[in-house]
């Protein structure tokens, strides 16, 4: 483990209005590490990712990206600089519908990265070709399947050459048969040596890709450890209950499985 963490979160708290969504979350993510955030809906997985990328304001605590504080005094310009080092992929893809696949990928490198149009396009086409989307370069997003759109969204984030990529339940909105192609792409990202933080409901995928699994519940980190520890031998009762209900959903009872967790 190198000296400086890729992402360092220290006692981070966040709230939507009166609702505390994160409470004193602390997490050190080493460079090239793959972290999977798991937990029930509303546990704060997505909020944590959005707060790291400064899409949400934090209430207290600090976030460091490669040792540089990005919360608080970083200011507007500082925020946009940080976002360029941290890529994000959304559950609903959020591709720009008025731009082609190629334009979606080249927009940020051209306008923010200072690349010429030709250079950005060469790079984007190379990315598309490498991940089997070469013939889709000039299509508009609404002509693509969900899986293809999500892969383009991942490449769009990758094209800005971020050091960290945040993936927010990127397979939740996909048809089951296209989930595989997106997961395969995420595996490639790990092999490229990127630092990944992913919120996911795919426990088996988390087991195979993650170095560490973090279980969140009620806005707090309840338990973390290697996939084997968390998925096979969870120690905390809430983790045990969650993992059991994910692996055997047909055995869960209605009472103990409320969809949204309240923070006490």
């Amino acid at each position, binding site marked *: 483990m190198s000296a400086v963490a890729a992402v360092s979160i220290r006692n981070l708290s966040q709230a939507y209005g009166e609702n505390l969504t994160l409470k004193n979350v602390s997490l050190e993510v080493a460079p090239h590490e793959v972290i999977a955030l798991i937990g029930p809906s509303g546990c704060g997985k997505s909020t944590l990712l959005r707060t790291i990328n400064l899409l949400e304001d934090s209430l207290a605590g600090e976030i460091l990206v490669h040792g540089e504080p990005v919360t608080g005094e970083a200011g507007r310009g500082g925020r*946009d600089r940080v976002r360029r080092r941290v890529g994000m992929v959304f559950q609903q893809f959020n591709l720009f519908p008025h731009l082609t696949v190629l334009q979606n990928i080249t927009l940020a490198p051209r306008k923010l990265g200072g690349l010429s149009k030709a250079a950005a396009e060469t790079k984007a086409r190379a990315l598309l070709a490498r991940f089997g989307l070469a013939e889709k370069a000039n299509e508009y997003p609404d002509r693509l399947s969900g899986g293809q759109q999500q892969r383009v969204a991942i490449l769009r984030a990758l094209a800005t050459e971020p050091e960290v990529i945040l993936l927010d339940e990127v397979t939740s909105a996909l048809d089951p048969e296209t989930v595989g192609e997106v997961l395969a792409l995420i595996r490639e990202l790990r092999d490229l040596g990127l630092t990944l933080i992913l919120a996911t409901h795919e426990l088996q995928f988390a087991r195979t890709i993650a170095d560490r699994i973090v279980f969140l519940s009620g806005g707090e980190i309840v338990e973390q450890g290697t996939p084997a520890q968390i998925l096979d031998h969870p120690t905390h009762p809430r983790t045990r209950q969650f993992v059991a209900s994910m692996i055997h959903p047909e055995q869960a009872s209605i009472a103990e499985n409320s969809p949204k967790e309240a923070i006490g």
Partner: protein
Amino acid sequence: MSIDDRVAAQAEQSDQAAQAEQSDHGARTAQTGPPTPTEQEAQAAPPVGRPGPPKLSDAELRALLVRPVWWRRADVRRSALIATVSTLALLAVLGFGLSSSAGWESFRAAFLSPEHFVLSFPKVWDGFLLNVTLFIILEPIVLLVGLGLALLRNLSSPVFFPLRAFAIGYIDLFRGLPAILVILMLGMGIPALRIEGLSSSPLFWGAVGCVLTSAAYTAETYRAGIESIHPSQRAAARALGFGHGRTLWYIVLPQAVRRVVPPLMSGFIALQKETALISVIGPMEASRAAQAYSATTFNFTSYLVAAVLFVSITIPLTRLTDHLLRRAQLRRGMGGAV
């Protein structure tokens, strides 16, 4: 036998078969009471002796497709016929009612005189050319000023608060004022100031009044478009590192403008009619020319000429707007959520 006949014949046959079966079934239940389990099983199976619709070849299906809906479907054909007959009947009643009214003859002479139509046409036409010139020149200006106002209203930095406040105040003011008042005040007031270098032409100030009023509405149209873009689009742009301004310029605005093209067209049609208001401060546009003609001849057919000229431009544009709207709705329906 053509495909239509075949399909129709089959449909009729199966209708008859279904009816026969129903009445048959009714008779049976009346005789024997509730059906026995074996009878229920027989019902679940496809009825025997009832031919379904014929299997059509690809060529036959394609032949069906090329026909318009009204030809394919008898009920649509019937509705079209009923609509035509009722419209003709209404027109006949209205025509009879009007032409049998006491003042009909004098009305026709004063408003519908063919000779006066021909005589006044060149003068009103000359005036109408001024309207056309005006709205062709003014529309691009209105679109630009409106966009500028909408952008000012979207500025987020506290430094630009005065500009934002100005845009909001401007839009409130000019959306609230009747256009005719704006034109009168500018056209009468500013030339009276006699400021060096400022135009004193009523035509110029009338045009300015049109632009000021229309731009306020246009700005609101743009704003509606900007606000209709889903926040997730902004989030995606911000996550890539785009700041507020560039997010608006590269991501939000291109989508917003596409979405508001139909309402912008409606605004354009409104502007075309607004150019007639300039007549209150003097310029000889179509309605003023019509008025001048009627003042010397005591015949009002010239107004009809002006009306026909305006409508000949606005109605086709209205149809085009409707067409664009429908296409936009269709596209959005197919595109799904973004």
